[in-house]
């Protein structure tokens, strides 16, 4: 988010072209969103799957984490459909 405040470093003109600005903004928003999502999934799946941390991740824990990640992504889809297709 910092690069909004300071004009983009490294590019030739002091004023970046609008296209460049728009692209940068989109990329940064997507990155921020992905990071936030990852952090949430980490938290949720750690709570669910690693209930008693041992000396290493067990096979059971690993497969729980895989399933948890898949289900969390699926849940995001279900929620978004619940909100934006009010038919069902």
């Amino acid at each position, binding site marked *: 988010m910092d690069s909004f405040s300071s004009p983009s470093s490294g590019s030739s003109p002091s*004023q970046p*072209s*609008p*296209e460049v*600005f*728009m692209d940068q*903004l*989109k990329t940064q*928003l997507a990155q921020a*969103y992905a990071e*936030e*999502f990852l952090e*949430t999934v980490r938290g*949720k*799946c750690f709570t*669910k*799957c690693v209930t008693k941390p041992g000396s290493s991740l067990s096979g059971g824990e690993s497969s*729980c984490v895989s*399933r*948890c990640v*898949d*289900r*969390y992504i*699926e*849940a*995001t889809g*279900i*929620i*978004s*459909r*619940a*909100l934006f297709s009010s038919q*069902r």
Partner: protein
Amino acid sequence: MDSSALNSADLQRFIEQEKQKAMVNEMVAKLTDVCWDKCITGTPGSKFSSGETTCLTYCAQRYMDMSMMIMKRFQSMQ
């Protein structure tokens, strides 16, 4: 399109659109977070049960209902 042509109006519209998208993303992320805790009580399986799916759907919709209710409640206090 050169920068002067694109200036205010187009850029404003673009920023407005991105703001909207960010708000929607935020809302979905928040509701998924809350409803996950409410609806997915066991360890995640390889498939959601129909109960879990229904719970997630209802949870999101009721949250929106409640949010409207609270807004109205506050408006009536002024």
